[in-house]
């Protein structure tokens, strides 16, 4: 059995995180999951028409913003911006959502399409979902460790491409 990072410790960390995200940082975004049942796709998995989304979910998160870039092209000025949305994994579990490639995150009236989604932040280096508990020399590892967050790297996408609201093309 491990010594550090028990579920009791994790409970305290979870509370601190929720207090920090909810009461102190208070950054929110809205997650739109792609409705795969309604969205028609081609043989490559690309949507062939409109994309449909599930009901939005408001989530607390920690947002790492980058400065927008403006590129002048032959057809005008192009606006791009990359954001990183870091969610508390427990919040996502409670909301039964998981941001994936192609999902849309709305932040301050702007839409960002998820291009990468990953979890790579393990408290004390352990993930209780992978305890390998069959090891008789070190049982009970399912009660230790904590996968803290889900990080999503998303890029700006114009509102008229998302089709969530009526926008002028």
């Amino acid at each position, binding site marked *: 059995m491990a010594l550090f990072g028990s579920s*009791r410790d994790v409970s305290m960390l979870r*509370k601190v995180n929720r207090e920090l995200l909810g009461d102190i940082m208070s950054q929110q975004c809205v997650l739109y999951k792609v409705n795969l049942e309604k969205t028609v796709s081609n043989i490559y998995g690309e949507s062939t028409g409109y994309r449909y989304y599930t009901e939005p979910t408001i989530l607390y998160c920690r947002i790492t913003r980058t400065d927008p870039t403006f590129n002048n092209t032959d057809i005008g000025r192009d606006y791009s911006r990359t954001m990183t949305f870091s969610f508390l994994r427990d919040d996502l579990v409670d909301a039964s959502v998981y941001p994936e490639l192609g999902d849309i995150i709305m932040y301050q009236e702007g839409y960002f399409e998820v291009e990468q989604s990953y979890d790579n932040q393990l408290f004390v280096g352990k993930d209780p979902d992978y305890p390998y508990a069959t090891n008789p020399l070190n049982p009970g590892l399912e009660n230790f460790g904590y996968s*803290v967050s889900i990080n999503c790297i998303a890029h700006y996408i114009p509102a008229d491409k998302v089709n969530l609201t009526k926008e002028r093309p």
Partner: protein
Amino acid sequence: MNIPIYPGSSSFFPGNTPFGFYDNDYDFQVDADKVATFCARRLGYPIMEVELQDINFYAAFEEAITTYGNELYAFQLRDNLLNVINTPTSSNLSTALITPSLANIIRMSQQYGVEAGVGGNVTWYSGSFTTTASIQDYDLGDWAISQSISGGIEIKRIFHYGPPAVTRFYDPYAGTGLGTQNLMDSFGFGAYSPSVNFVLMPVNYDIQVIQAIEFNDTVRKSAYSFELINNKLKIFPIPDQSGVNIYFQYIKLQDRLDSIVNTGSAAVITNPSNAGYQNPVYSRINSIGRQWIFEYTLSLCKEILGYVRGKYTQVPIPGAEVTLNQSDLISAATAEKTALLERLRTFLDETSNQKMLERKQAETVARQSELGQAPMTIFIG
């Protein structure tokens, strides 16, 4: 697992404290939840979460009361240990009014009485041996063995003196009694026994006669004396006859050692650990003491919270790590606890018997000085 933290209110039940010293005290039951609220609010609740539970507050509250009692009774014990030693351990000193006594000071002084031969707790025995003509040295250690005394003896007194001068006061051959004889002759009583003096003489005359006899013995005769080293007695002058008893007093060395440790069967207070002090009764602690307890409870809670938040120096949050305020909490708690204890000890020291007497004396001096400022009137009868 979801460990709940303080939700903003609590409800104390007996058994919620680690030791349960005060659980059944109604005042404690009432104050426990108030103290929890007080501490939580002082720690930032409800603006901030306090990662403690009600039982943490109760444990700190109980410890604060016990600490207060320890400080109080340790002070009382310091002030009264000399008085309460050798009293029954069954006495509850926490609420007892202690009246000072010299009993233990006398007990402690008995050792001096033993050596001075004026009391004490070691028996002085008497012994004697018989002189042998021309033999000056006698081993009293051997004498003790012959008397089956184990552990050795220590000679306290040797009765080896010349005859008192007063026994020869009327001796016409003492060399100094002639004055008396001459005086009697001059009054026509020369035929009478010199042992009877019918003439009233001043005391100073008698004293001078005695001194003359002693001085005569010192100058003209071998002095009565002795030397005692390691129980080897050398007597002076060299005995000129056998069969003379020389008496002495001694103690048994084992008796002196036995007097050190008293292992009586009665359970009596012998040291601070078995003095009959118990935990204080919370309901009897006044507001001064309770306020100290509340503040100390807060410091303890601060310390607990510091350790909770500081078990892991870096707390992971999504995509980053933060450091909580554990070091501030612990350092503040440590400083506050130290300051509270020093404040309490200073206050208690000011109420010691010695300090109170000193203050009373100072008040008396000051009062007399103040009264001395009043003008002295001239009495006209």
